[in-house]
Each structure stands twice: as C-alpha cells, then as structure tokens.
C-alpha cells in the first residue's frame, strides 16, 4: 500500500537525477520553470502574505488583554510566527495547489497523449528532461517567494496594527527589533527548500504514472495536491523537531 508507490517514487527520483543529455537545453528549461513557478506565483503569494500578517496582528492584539504585557510583543510575535511557520508553510500549501496541480496535470497529459513515450523513443531520459527543471526551478524560486512573503506579512501586520489602533507604529517596530534570532530565518529557508522539493517531485510522480485519459489526469492532479499538503505538514513537523 505505501512501500510500492514509495519505491516507485525513489526509482523515479533516481532517473530524474541522471546526467542530462545536454545541459544548455536543461538550463533553458530551468529558467522557464523559474519564471513559471516564481513570477507566476508572485501575485497570489503577495496577496495571501499581506492578509496573513494582518490577521496575525489583529488576533494577537485581541488575545493580549493584560496591561502587564507590552504592546510591542505583537511585533515580535508577528515576526517569529511569520518567519518560522506562516510564510513557509502557508505559501507551500498554496503553491501545492497552484504549482503542484499544474505540474501533475501537465505531465499527466503528456503521459496519456503519448508525448512521454515519444521522448523515450528519441532516447531522451524523460524523467530527467521533464521533472529535473521543475524541481530545480522550484528549489531556486520558492525560497525567494518565502522571503517576499515574510516581508509582505510583516508589512501587512504593521499596516493592520496601525490602522486598527491595536498597536502603535513605534511599538510594532520596537517589537520587530527585539529578540530576533537569525537562526529562525535559516529554519524558514530550510523548510522552503524541502517544501519546494516535495511539491514538485510528488506532483511530478503523480503525473508521470497517470494511466488512462482526461478523468485520470484530473484525479492525478487532485492526488498530487492532497499528498503534497500532507507531506508538507509532516516535513514541517520533522524540520521543526530537528532544528529547533
């Protein structure tokens, strides 16, 4: 039930990381994927990030009813929760929906329309040509998206805090500057690289082994999103447990 697909997934990854036929063609594909995954997802990541920060600020302020706790704590909480958890994990889950379903349906369609067979017949390592650029494109761009997400979340938190009167601008900035542990940023980047790998490799696996027609392509796409989301949350816990 679990070991057979996992074994196939490992064997697929082995084929993915085989030496490319021509690096310059792969390089072009990697840049194309970086554009598709990175630039193509910038809009949605920006929007959700601003609201994530805003909601975190408002809800933290709502729970801080004690006069003994300084309001500047809100800035610190928004910063740490954004860097450590919200930006990498929520962004990854959103990207699993957007990028993962696209990867699975794209590769799945190529499978059912015999385009992958055509690559194989030409003597091309199809897992390498189709999947490696997607994995590398995601691993290079998703951490950048997470950095942008962190910045916009904090900005969103600041704007919401000031606009609602929950915290003053000065208190929020003081909170941001107090007790920052740079290692949290390292954890965030490690998470985003692992999540990028999970999203693309799991989705590509689902697409690559699609059998049938349009219905099965849709099912593969759905499975890719569901399994990626579960794998992201498991990996999130494991990384947190190991690094913090």
């Amino acid at each position: 039930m679990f070991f057979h697909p996992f074994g196939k997934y490992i064997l697929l990854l082995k084929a993915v990381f085989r030496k490319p036929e021509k690096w310059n063609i792969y390089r072009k594909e990697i840049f194309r994927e970086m554009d598709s995954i990175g630039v193509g997802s910038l809009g949605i990541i920006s929007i959700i990030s601003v609201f994530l920060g805003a909601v975190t600020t408002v809800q933290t302020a709502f729970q801080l009813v004690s006069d003994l706790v300084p309001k500047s704590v809100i800035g610190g909480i928004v910063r740490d929760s954004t860097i450590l958890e919200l930006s990498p994990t929520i962004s990854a889950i959103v990207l699993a929906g957007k990028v993962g379903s696209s990867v699975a349906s794209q590769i799945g369609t190529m499978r059912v329309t015999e385009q992958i067979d055509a690559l194989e017949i030409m003597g091309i390592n199809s897992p390498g040509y189709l999947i490696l650029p997607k994995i590398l494109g995601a691993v290079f761009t998703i951490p950048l998206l997470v950095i942008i997400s962190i910045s916009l979340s904090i900005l969103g938190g600041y704007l919401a805090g000031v606009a609602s009167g929950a915290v003053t601008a000065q208190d929020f900035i003081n909170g941001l500057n107090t007790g920052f542990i740079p290692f949290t940023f390292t954890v965030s980047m490690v998470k985003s690289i692992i999540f990028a790998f999970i999203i693309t490799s799991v989705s590509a696996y689902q697409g690559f082994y699609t059998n049938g027609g349009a219905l099965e392509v849709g099912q593969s796409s759905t499975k890719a999103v569901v399994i990626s989301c579960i794998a992201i949350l498991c990996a999130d816990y494991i990384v947190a447990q190991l690094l913090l």
Partner: protein
Amino acid sequence: MIEIKNINKTFGENHVLRGISAEFNEGMCNLIIGGSGSGKTTLLKCMVGLHEPETGSVSYDGRDFTRLNFEARIDVRKEIGMLFQSSALFDSMTVEENIMFPLNMFTDQNRKEKLERVNFCLDRVNLEGKNKLFPSELSGGMKKRVGIARAISMQPKYLFVDEPNSGLDPKTSIVIDELIKEITEEYTITTVVVTHDMNSVMGIGDNIIFLANGQKEWQGSNKEIAHTDNKELNDFVFASKFMQAAKDKL
C-alpha cells in the same frame, strides 16, 4: 533488419503475446495486423522498449535490445523514429521546434544547419512553410505528417508507425500510406506499421504478420493475402462485403 524471437508479454492474468517470432526486413513496409486486442500495439511497444517482454529477444541488426543497458539502449533509440497513433507532438512547441527537438538534443549542428534539416523534412512531407504553427492549429492528417517529419529528422534506420490511419479520411489515409512507403524505400529504412486498415494492407504491405489472440497466425505479402486459406485471416481481412466482393473478382 529487426528480428524478434519468442516474445511473451502478460499484464496481470492477461497473456497478451504468446511466443511471437518474426523478422522485419530492411527497405520494406512490414505490417503487423490483427483485430482489436490481438496484441499489435503491445508487440510494437515491446519492440521499441516501452514495454518489457517477459521472455524473448528483439535484435536490431544483431544487437539484442532486451539485454542492453540504459546507455546502449539510448544509442539504438537514436536510430529509431516513431509515429504514434495520436501523433504525440509536443503541444507547447511549434512544428519547427517539434522537428528540431531531437536535433537539439543529440547533434552539435548550428541553428542554420538544423533549420535546413527541418525544412527538408517538412518539404518531404509536403508541409513547407508550416514551421511556426502549433499542433493545435493542425488537422489530423497534418499532425501525422509532422509526426513523420519528426521521426525522420534524425535519419533513422528503423521506423515504427502505430495506426497511421486512425481518425483520418480515406483520401488522407492513402497519402500517409504512400508517404510511409516512399520514405521507407528512399532511405532503405526498416519500417514496422501496426494497422487494421485494409487499404494499407493491400497498398503497402510488403511483409505482413497477422496476429490473433496474441499469437502469430500468418505471415506473407499483400499479394499472397488474397489467396490464403487461413480461416482467421480470411475472416479478418474479408469481413466487409466490399472486401468480399473484391476478393470474388480476383
């Protein structure tokens, strides 16, 4: 020449190919015919390595493909061209990029040389000037012709064609058949065509292998097929009243 020996292939409980042996000759259109589910496409896929047969061998001019390692298989595959039933053109690429793709991957030619080859292949399939169209802008017959152009771009020694006439009108089918025949003879390619189209059988079948229930039932040429006493083959070839009438006139 391609030689297959004792090919067996099963999918679960379903024994699709049962000990098939045959030879496919150079410079000829070798046809694999048979009813739906007889194992034609499975045999073709076993020959090109898209399926692994349980037993048997597939030899390309003496090289046993089934026993080659990954790298050696790639060397053989560079000598193979294939036209798929669905044409299998890459949707995201133009006609020109589709044909140029194997050249980009496996040759060190500059862009001008590759473009010359692309234009030559397009001319050969009577699609000159269609370089910048996308597959979605092509008719079924045009897609097949682009598929043939892509298959011959690397000057293959072996050409595999899966159901070249499916979804085409009779006139376009004949054009595709004639093109396959011309290319086979012109470049002395070993061509293997899977079909159940009787026009193709009669038109280009230099060497015909008839499969039924996963077994080779009969082998011969299109000239011999009308006079065979093999009942299964007669039932298949002369199933329609038109073909029966044609046979009676022979």
